[in-house]
């Protein structure tokens, strides 16, 4: 990617960069800790959140494994995770790469990062669960950085049975 062709300031404010990195670190800590009720708070009210197989993403097929279009839908998902979806409980552990800032415009900061999620069920071996790339748009809202878009494009298209918790 030709960074200079995009709206990247020649030197991104290091404090802004650190703030974005902190957003990703806090996001991972949230979804790995089981505090799902805090998860929607990382998003804007009119956000989009998608977990989409790479094949659909690259072929322009619109189906996603999960596709939500508002913070309210994320809150409904939290209710599903905690109250309605029957599943074997598991730990998940996100490992997220350094961030790649691809564009800074008035509509937000385009950020990408690789991620790896390990699943560990009780008394079972840890296993690679889901791996892919976040393609996100981060905006400042009420003084805090939030995700206006988070798209989890996963390589691991053969899902090990089910995905319950947020990626």
């Amino acid at each position, binding site marked *: 990617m030709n960074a200079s062709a995009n709206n990247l300031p020649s030197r991104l404010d290091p404090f802004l960069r650190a703030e974005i990195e902190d957003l990703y670190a806090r996001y991972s800590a949230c979804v790995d800790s089981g505090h799902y009720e805090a998860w929607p708070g990382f998003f804007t009210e009119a956000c989009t959140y998608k*977990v989409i*197989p790479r*094949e*659909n993403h690259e*072929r322009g*097929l*619109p*189906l*996603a*494994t*999960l*596709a*939500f*279009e*508002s913070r*309210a*839908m994320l*809150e*409904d998902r939290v*209710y*599903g995770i905690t*109250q*309605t*979806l*029957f*599943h*074997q409980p598991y730990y998940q552990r996100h490992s997220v790469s350094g961030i790649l800032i691809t564009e800074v415009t008035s509509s937000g900061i385009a950020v990408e990062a690789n991620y790896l999620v390990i699943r560990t069920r009780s008394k079972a071996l840890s296993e690679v669960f889901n791996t892919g790339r976040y393609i996100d748009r981060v905006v400042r809202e009420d003084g805090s950085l939030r995700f206006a878009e988070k798209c989890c494009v996963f390589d691991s*298209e*053969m*899902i*090990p*049975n*089910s*995905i*319950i918790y947020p990626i």
Partner: protein
Amino acid sequence: MNDRTHSTAPLEWHPGGPSRVPYRTYVDPALHAIELERFFNHDHWAYVCLSCEIPNAGDFKRTWIGERQVIAVRDIDGTVSVLENHCAHRGAQFCQKDHGNATELVCPYHQWSYDLKGNLQGVPFLRGVKSNGRINGGMPGDFRKSDHGLTRLKVEEWNGVVFGSFDTAVAPLRDYLGPEITPWYERIFDGRSLTLLGYNRQRIPGNWKLMQENIKDPYHPGLLHTWFVTFGLWRADQKSSLVMDAHGRHAVMISSKNEGGKGDVTQGVTSFKENMTLKDARVLDVVPEPWWKGPTVTMLTLFPSVIIQQQVNSLSTRHIVPVGPDAFDFHWTHFGYAEDTPEMTRRRLRQANLFGPAGYVSADDGEVIEMQQAGFRQHPDYQTVSELGGRDIGSTDHNVSETLIRGMYGYYRKVMGV
């Protein structure tokens, strides 16, 4: 491994009939091998793909029938060939792309090439190599390219869906489905052009038959699935019917949604959430379509390989690909109709949040199937009990019955000779 799963003793089936299924039916590798032979390699049709996945000449898609990998490819004459993915020369699974477009099929190992109907066309050094005035090598004089094509399956393309069979003597597809099932098939696939919305894939650590049973089981949806019972998408007090073909192998669960809420069927049901409301109800923005002609849900189980789903506005095929006795891959293909408005397409996609490996409803199914398989492995001599609605087998005008599971095992026992 537990020796019991390898026992050569005859299966002990309950004298009462197919309502009791020995656990070993789900875990025994020897039985599994026979199932592949009798249900996937002979006498049966299997799902291959949707026509809209390979619309143009040369378009191909790689998929599976049973545990055998095949390539579905559309020729310039518009017909679809389904070819087994191994080179006739040295057996290499030569096609390594999931989909694409090709004018010929070429194995990279020795460059044997095939036309789009699987006929062998090119064999390097067929007549040998000229060197120093003599010819070295070459195939024997009696070598005929026509003897070495790819395995080509019998194919039928019916209103937008491609089916294939390794058995050239299999009955015509319409007869295979039978008059009870065909109207429900043609309700969804009435000849309208389809559009591909995308895929979901999951590996479920359970025997492949359990997925057929899951969608022949109207007992669980209103109990396991909070969303179904709470929002009235599937529960025991709905106007419903269960239909099966004359063999008991294929079935349709048909129902019409109601308003949900509290009632006899929610008494003591812990998954029912009386006060549950959605903060953003667009996920359940159901709009009836004229072609429904009544039912809001029809779930077709076409034995052995596919489930065809209409659950309100969500449409999909769910393809079952066995992976040994203890797992199967489950490939979901969501589709719509070419005539859909953008709003209807968006609605189908929103409702897809209920289904697939993360769906509000379907994620539960994969999880309980995994738990069943674990239970079966503990002691293969036990048996399941599927006796809701009695022990007999037949269609019903309600959904409080496990008759479809019994029907499937009546057929299973006949074909397997157990």
